């Protein structure tokens, strides 16, 4: 064998060993999330920025589906030992996983992280159960009231005041009366997030976030549901949105509905669909001004090795940093969770060029976290059927909410 060939083989072997050692040093974090399309692109950008800044960590992001899909798949993955290292979990439904010891207690990481002081109080609070921190917020939202300016103008409604239930109902009636022949309805049947918001706007809650008291049959909760059911009863909302909540949103985006109450995370999509015809207002303050905090945070699985948990925390801390949060806010319309996000150029540009994107930010002084005890998952799942029964006139609101409250209390007692 010639000297040159020996040198070549030795060099190749060394290069192979070096590259293998390099590959071994890289830590891979398997990350399940619920963002596709535009939101998914924004998340991928954040992941790419993180990997560029941390070449020793690879984030394997995977779109799983909506929040419910993630919860269902996570359950199946845990006993099969195929769970990811980090996962997006909706803010009212991670309690079950925290309670079951599935999520790592992030308190030691969080307390040592300067990020803790950069987050708004509302954002910091959503990750806490008892005195422990289980998720770091990523996408926070509140419901807002979207309206179609063109539809309002054609119905003769200018400068709409939509602060009370009565005003919203009146505007919805006017739109349906005047434009119903064109297939336009006044309002989209509220989805579950908006329903929760309307209950809070009526001075009540579904479950008290502090005491855990079940308030489903409280008079003001019942009154809020009666008003929501009246939207269907008076035919100012399409029943299509009752059985499939996305139908209401899709109809609004198609210019067939005057008013939609939905997450601020729908802002960018709505803006793309309706352009300058999109108007955004805060949720009504019927009895009081109070909106729920929604969205999700990222938790780390207790089953992952320590070095992977460390890498995963580094990523989720980065995802909530001012730089990443500004990218996310500008691309999606979700709330800024980092106090310094609005100072970033990309966020300043969004605030200047996208009127209405700041409505949710202005709602923050009266935004409140929601209960996240284990029974909330059961309550939210069951609420869909209860709402359908009331909205479609199958059962009376008072009777249904009383039954719902009793069943939720029984379920809570059983799960405890």
């Amino acid at each position, binding site marked *: 064998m010639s000297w040159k060939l020996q040198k070549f083989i030795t060099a190749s072997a060394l290069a192979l060993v070096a590259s293998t050692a390099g590959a071994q040093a890289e830590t891979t974090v398997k990350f399940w999330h619920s963002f596709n399309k535009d939101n998914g692109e924004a998340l991928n950008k954040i992941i790419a920025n993180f990997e560029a800044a941390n070449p020793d960590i690879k984030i394997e992001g995977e779109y799983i589906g909506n929040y419910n899909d993630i919860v269902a798949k996570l359950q199946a993955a845990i006993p099969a030992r195929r769970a990811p290292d980090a996962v997006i979990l909706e803010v009212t439904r991670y309690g079950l996983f925290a309670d079951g010891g599935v999520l790592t207690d992030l308190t030691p990481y969080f307390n040592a992280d300067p990020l803790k002081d950069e987050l708004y109080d509302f954002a910091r609070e959503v990750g806490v159960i008892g005195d422990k921190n289980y998720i770091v917020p990523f996408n926070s939202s509140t419901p807002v009231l979207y309206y179609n300016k063109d539809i309002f103008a054609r119905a003769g409604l200018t400068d709409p005041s939509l602060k009370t239930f009565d005003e919203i109902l009146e505007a919805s009636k006017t739109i349906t009366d005047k434009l119903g022949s064109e297939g336009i309805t006044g309002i989209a049947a509220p989805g579950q997030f908006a329903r929760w918001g309307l209950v809070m706007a009526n001075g009540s809650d579904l479950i008290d976030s502090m005491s855990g008291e079940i308030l489903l049959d409280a008079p003001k909760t019942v009154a809020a549901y009666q008003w929501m059911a009246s939207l269907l009863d008076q035919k100012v909302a399409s029943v299509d949105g009752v059985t499939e909540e996305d139908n209401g949103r899709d109809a609004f985006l198609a210019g067939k509905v005057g008013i939609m109450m939905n997450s601020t995370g729908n802002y960018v999509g709505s803006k793309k669909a309706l352009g300058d015809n999109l108007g955004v207002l805060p949720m009504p303050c019927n009895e009081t001004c109070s909106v729920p905090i929604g969205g999700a945070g990222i938790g780390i699985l207790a089953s992952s090795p320590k070095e992977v948990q460390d890498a995963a925390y580094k990523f989720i801390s980065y995802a909530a940093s001012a730089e990443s949060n500004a990218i996310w806010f500008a691309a999606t319309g979700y709330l800024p969770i980092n106090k310094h996000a609005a100072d970033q150029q990309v966020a300043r540009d969004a605030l200047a060029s996208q009127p209405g994107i700041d409505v949710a930010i202005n709602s923050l002084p009266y935004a409140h976290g929601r209960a996240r005890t284990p029974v909330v998952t059961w309550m939210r799942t069951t609420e869909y059927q209860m709402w359908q*029964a009331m909205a479609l006139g199958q059962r009376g609101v008072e009777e249904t909410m009383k039954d719902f409250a009793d069943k939720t209390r029984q379920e809570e007692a059983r799960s405890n």
Partner: protein
Amino acid sequence: MFRKFTPYLLVAPLIAFIAVFTYVPIVSSINLSFRSWNFMSPDMPFVGLENYTRLLGSSDFWNSLRVTTIFAVVSVPIRLVLALLIASYLKREALSSRTLRGALFLPSVTSTVSIAVVFSWVFSTDYGMANAVLGWFGLGKVHWMQDPQLALFVLIFINTWKQLGYDVVIYIAGLQAVPQELYDAAAMDGGKRFQVFRRVTVPLIMPTTYFLLVISVIEAFQVFTIINVMTHGGPAGATDMLVHLLYRTGFVLFDIGTGSALAVLLFVLLIALALIKSRVIGRRVHYES
């Protein structure tokens, strides 16, 4: 010696496959039905019959059983009668018959999710094709998927449309196996068309009918995908059939014990139905020796 065990060795992989993916899950479900577990906890405490008593005391279970029974009782006869009529018409070997058979069979091999998504739009109240067609005739909008009485029948219609082609193909095979000389003999005896059908065709295709009955009843009790995509069990539980309730209990509400108890009850119910069918109809089934 080796030759003696060869057949067993050859079937061993298949037996292992069936054991792992069928028998082990069945035994595991029976075990879990007596335990309390939520997927996450390392402990699975034994709770005896608690899951069964909770299930049998729940209005959701009885509603699902009622809905599933209605679905089966309405859809199975419609499927079998329609399939037999269409098969009688399409059994001749002609190009048009073969083309129609293929067209009818297509939904059987089409993704159920795709079918459910398309029909969600067809039956949309405000934007659906069904209401648009009614509108051409001056008829008002029908709440296909929001009316609890109608929604189940919409699902029955879709399921029948999807499965009909398969039933037709099986019936055609059964009809083509009936010896022509029996029809010739019946014709010589002056048998009318309906009489021949009732006295010759129906008894001779009884094994096919029995097979389709067993299969379609099992299918009716296992419908899930269409519901999960189109209605999620709604409106207000009107389409919450047993397998969907099972999914909701186990995989949405994390109650694996109760979900497994429901799976066991469904298993027992289907075996009981198969036995009843065997006792009642099986006696009328005659196979050619």
